[in-house]
């Protein structure tokens, strides 16, 4: 028997209480974090957050304390944005949190707004998430009526554009422009939404904030590794026995997480895990003992990203998956900057001809050259990561014969 590593902190209430009831949330310990945040005040809370070592859960893993401090020190008025535009293929943890425990996200949002001194908040919710939208609207109404929101909250729906999860593209989208990223600097902490200093946090990050405020930095650090503190939500999909969202401490080996989800389906063997979704990388069976932490994955050139783990069994057509990923980036590139607009198109063409057995001499080198250009010269994370899965697949299938 493998030790069951699951720790339900963020998922403590999920599936166990009525997510539509503020009362049920409070009875289950909700809003203790806000109570304590109000009791100790903004500066000690910011200290606490910094000591917790919380890193952003949207994919970039930026230290939350650093971001919050920058916004708190910037001139008012300030904006708070909750990034709920979850669109990374294979990722659904934010949706589950918003549908099943919406008040935990709102509690974190209120704590964040009060701590950095933001009077306005906006939740940018993925356009396709109708269920989460209904849940959120109702929860915002209940929290407002109970005097627990403490900030004006606007729920803003996306309209089908992966790029709008990029924070500056998100600002443009809210401002009624095409969702194209802006050049940085200026960073959002200086000039973000409507040109104002803006704190942008992911849904899961805000849910963690409520935990840290309630129980303190030490309790938070009790889980995870020295540099990746706390627990992480992972989204398991594909050829896994029980797909779903699982919460484990950072540092849990990939093997244990797969076991927790029932192992590879139909008793088959693992071929690869696409870690981090379309913008992530493939990990082969020789990586099963990798500790799932920011630093653990970085040592092998991978990243946790959004927490998506798409499992491919031994029968899956790996290169067909690569083709779909390449098409995804070709379709979702906003077209603003040349390296990404042209690079994603050329990448797809090469991947397609390799898949169809029409590969040419030098195609592998061309893919690597393209990857270098896109990674170095694209304006935003979309272009910078658009070749990640393709290049990691080359390493798995070996030189010369991707199919």
């Amino acid at each position, binding site marked *: 028997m493998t030790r069951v590593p699951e720790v339900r902190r963020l998922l403590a209430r999920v599936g166990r209480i009525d997510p539509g009831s503020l009362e049920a949330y409070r009875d289950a310990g909700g809003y203790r974090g806000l109570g304590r945040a109000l009791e100790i005040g903004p500066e000690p809370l910011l200290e606490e957050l910094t000591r917790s070592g919380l890193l952003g859960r949207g994919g970039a893993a930026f230290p939350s304390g650093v971001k919050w401090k920058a916004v708190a020190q910037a001139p008012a008025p300030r904006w708070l944005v909750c990034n709920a535009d979850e669109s990374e293929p294979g990722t659904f943890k934010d949706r589950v949190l918003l549908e099943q425990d919406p008040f935990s996200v709102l509690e974190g949002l209120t704590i964040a707004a009060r701590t950095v001194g933001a009077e306005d908040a906006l939740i940018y919710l993925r356009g396709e998430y109708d269920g989460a939208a209904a849940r959120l609207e109702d929860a915002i109404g209940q929290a407002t009526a109970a005097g627990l929101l403490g900030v004006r909250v606007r729920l803003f729906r996306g309209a089908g554009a992966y790029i709008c999860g990029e924070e500056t593209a998100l600002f443009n989208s809210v401002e009624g422009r095409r969702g194209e990223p802006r050049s940085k600097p200026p960073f959002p902490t200086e000039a973000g939404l409507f040109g104002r200093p803006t704190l942008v946090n992911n849904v899961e990050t805000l849910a963690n904030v409520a935990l840290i405020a309630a129980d303190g930095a030490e309790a938070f650090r009790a889980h995870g590794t020295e540099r990746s503190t706390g627990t992480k939500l992972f989204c398991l*999909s594909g050829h896994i026995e029980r797909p779903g969202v699982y919460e484990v401490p950072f540092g849990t080996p990939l093997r244990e997480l797969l076991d927790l989800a029932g192992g590879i389906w139909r008793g088959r063997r693992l071929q690869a895990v696409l870690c981090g979704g379309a913008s992530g990388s493939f990990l082969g069976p020789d990586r099963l003992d990798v500790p799932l932490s920011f630093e653990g994955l970085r040592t092998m050139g991978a990243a946790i990203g959004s927490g998506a783990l798409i499992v491919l069994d031994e029968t899956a057509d790996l290169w067909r998956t690569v083709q779909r990923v390449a098409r995804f980036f070709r379709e979702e590139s906003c077209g603003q900057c040349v390296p990404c607009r042209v690079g994603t198109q050329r990448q797809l063409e090469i991947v397609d001809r390799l898949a169809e057995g029409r590969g040419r001499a030098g195609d592998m080198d061309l893919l690597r050259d393209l990857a270098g250009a896109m990674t170095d010269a694209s304006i935003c994370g979309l272009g910078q990561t658009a070749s990640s899965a393709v290049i990691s697949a080359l390493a798995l299938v070996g030189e010369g014969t991707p199919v």
Partner: protein
Amino acid sequence: MEHNPPSAVTQGEKDAVERAVRVLDAGSGLSRTHLLPLLQAVQRDRGWLSRGVLAQVAERLRLPFPEVWGVATFYALLRLEPPAGVPVHVCDDVPCRLRGAEALLAELEVRYGPPRRFSGRAHGEPAEPGVAKGGVDWETVPCLGQCEAAPVAVVGGALCRGADAAGIAGAVAAAGPRGGDAGA
């Protein structure tokens, strides 16, 4: 040129935009940040966004028509042509493909003809006309974020988890001849 405003806006289009303005409840504070919500509200109401609607929205927000056109063509969920049947979105992304989406797509193609190409509406590329076979206007879409229930589809705005062709056909029948909203 497509990005030039239409010569006339019908009363129906004007009324639809006014209804959407009232739904937003922005009062006198109507500004550019209401552009996307306004387009979404009209689409919920009428099922798609005609050029007259875009012109009226431009007028209401005091924006040049090409600016509104540019935004409307950017988002995949905004429809710039009337759906040719009940709008059906079927996920063909990696997690759904690994759990049967390819077989599902093949079955749907037999029933409803080839799907509309999703990228046709993404980021301003010209759309391809929809083919309404069996009263359905369908297209494949990237990950819908419901991967634990793969394969998934959205039929007339209603989510189908663990979708199969029979389930989709049933949802199409339930959505009626015009269908619900395309999901935005």
